[in-house]
């Protein structure tokens, strides 16, 4: 995939901020995040728990629950429409049909008292006028497409009768039956066995090829990123630390946080050695340093880090990193 910013992007997020009240003040959980996605592109959003990646995804769908709030200066443009300024009914029509989302827990993602077929049909008939019989056919078709054996029989199954992998396939089927142009996958494989994980990832990749749908993949698993992503954005403390193509971020990481993350992945090449880790823990929301969010844990920290927000440094057409150290180096 080429650089998303040069073509007309499918989704462009500019200065997205989501705040929550913490001790009387509104603390940003997502802080001026910007990125763009081209049609058919897979962008992985990577980061530790609590770095704001799920909040970013929910904000794109405008599903931030109160007391959370998307700040008014944010802009999310999908298909040349400013999502944050759509009417509630227009937004509802866009959810599912334009942007769909699959969740982490396939066990809890399906209503236990409805057959899975009914749930898929509900999703379809919400956005398209189709007869019940035609809807049933479409549901069976999509079940077959996502690799559910005996699709017609499985339409009548209740969620508790399916395995975790099958449930996640049903979930994917439910989200794909109306053919959205962007699929947000929030840790789609975290709760699954490794073998099932591989199947689901292969399925997502095939579906992308087939339907030309863009995927915003949210994960903390670099294995999944390497398997699937075209581009990678690494988040820390509600901001994007580094963004670039898969080869750039995984092969030649520049931001100290990305470097630390990649070094702390256990690998067979370093058997028997002590696994490296990033010192310290993520400070909780509201206790973040004023300058670079990573300043408290960064090995290369120097004066401006604590005081100033680091600028995003362009390293290539597609690669940028927000770090004072790199800015300093580039300037020299």
């Amino acid at each position: 995939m080429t650089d998303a910013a040069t073509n007309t992007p499918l989704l462009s997020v500019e200065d997205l901020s989501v705040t929550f009240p913490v001790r009387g003040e509104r603390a940003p959980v997502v802080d001026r995040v910007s990125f763009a996605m081209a049609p058919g592109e897979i962008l992985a959003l990577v980061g530790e728990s609590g770095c704001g990646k799920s909040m970013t995804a929910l904000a794109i769908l405008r599903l931030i629950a109160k007391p959370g709030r998307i700040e008014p200066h944010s802009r999310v443009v999908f298909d040349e429409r400013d999502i944050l300024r759509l009417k509630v009914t227009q937004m509802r029509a866009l959810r599912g049909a334009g942007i769909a989302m699959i969740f982490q827990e396939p066990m809890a993602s399906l209503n236990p008292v409805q057959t899975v077929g009914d749930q898929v049909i509900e999703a379809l008939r919400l956005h398209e006028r189709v007869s019940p019989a035609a809807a049933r056919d479409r549901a069976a078709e999509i079940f077959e497409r996502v690799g559910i054996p005996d699709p017609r029989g499985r339409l009548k199954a209740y969620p508790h009768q399916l395995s975790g992998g099958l449930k996640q396939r049903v979930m994917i089927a439910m989200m794909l039956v109306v053919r959205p142009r962007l699929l947000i996958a929030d840790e789609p494989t975290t709760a699954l066995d490794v073998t099932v994980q591989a199947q689901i990832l292969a399925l997502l990749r095939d579906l992308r090829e087939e339907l030309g749908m863009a995927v915003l993949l949210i994960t903390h698993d670099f294995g999944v990123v390497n398997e699937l992503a075209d581009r990678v954005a690494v988040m820390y403390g509600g901001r994007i630390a580094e963004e670039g193509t898969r080869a750039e971020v995984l092969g030649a990481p520049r931001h100290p946080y990305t470097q630390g993350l990649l070094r702390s992945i256990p690998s067979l090449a370093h058997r028997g050695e002590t696994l490296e880790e990033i010192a310290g823990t993520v400070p909780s929301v509201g206790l973040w340093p004023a300058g670079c969010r990573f300043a408290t844990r960064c090995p290369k920290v120097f004066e401006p880090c604590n005081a100033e927000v680091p600028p995003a440094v362009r390293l290539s057409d597609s690669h940028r990193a927000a770090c004072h150290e790199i800015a300093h180096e580039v300037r020299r």
Partner: protein
Amino acid sequence: MSWVSNIIVALLVAGGAYVWIWARSNRLWREAMRALVRRRRFALIILGVYVLIGLLDAVSWVGGDGVQGVAASEARSVIDRIFKPSIFREKSYSEPFAQVEFVGGAALTFPGQHVLGTDILGDDVLYKTLKGVKVALLIGGLTCLVLIPLALLFGVSAGYFGGKIDDAVFFVMSTLASIPNLLLLIALIMALGKGTLQVCFALGITGWVGLSRLTRAETLKLRELEYVQAARALGVSHPTIVMRHILPNLAHLVIITFALLFTGLVLSETILAYLGIGLDGSWGRMIDQARNELSRDPVIWWNIVAASSALFILVLCVNLIADALRDILDPRTLRERP
């Protein structure tokens, strides 16, 4: 007025048949019904007999079979027609299966035929007891018809929408819960009047808080579940989410609470009758009237025994069924091994 109750009976029978057919077509409920029948066959049969008697007593029509002492325009139910209370009576008390009157020993008009004896007015006690079935079922059923929608409306909207709505509902619930139930009940009945509808309405108004709390808590939990989130991510509107994803997942709570409430309501009517504000023809009224008879010598025991036993058996059966239902429907209670 007889046609109203006839239509209601027809609707009840049709509704029951529909629920039966629907539940049979749905595996979840079919299995639940099977498990219930296996565990509580006897209680279900007895409850069925009660319901049948109640329904027979609710079907009535005008027109005579030539019985004396009946006005031509009076609609009489199947039970009335079987017992013919206007002629099937004595002058005063008689013991069960007695040949002679209890006081004085004069010969009875129907010797040996009053299975449960007769009361002070000479009315057959079995007849009066059977007439009480309809009243009891009416109190339980009608009150739940008021109570459950009210509880669901407040509980679900408080739990689902949260914020100010939740605060408002919680305020109303806390206020209601802080007033002694019986006092509020008596005050309401005094204000509304003493009819069947009024009493049921008053019971409904005072009783919804418990179920409302339960459904609010459960809705709070369901709202955060990922399938509700997923439905929202798919663009489903709030009313549809409530109808399709919240209410069906509250069904087990509602059914269990209904079964448990039912007996509580029948019993509270008894207490109301004891205080003199119950319904005509109820078992509570019979027990209230039999109070003085217990202090007589020799004791007139059959009145109170008949009414109390009928009440006891109904309450016991419904409680047994409710208990089994909870085991079957609530996944958190471990299934008892038969």
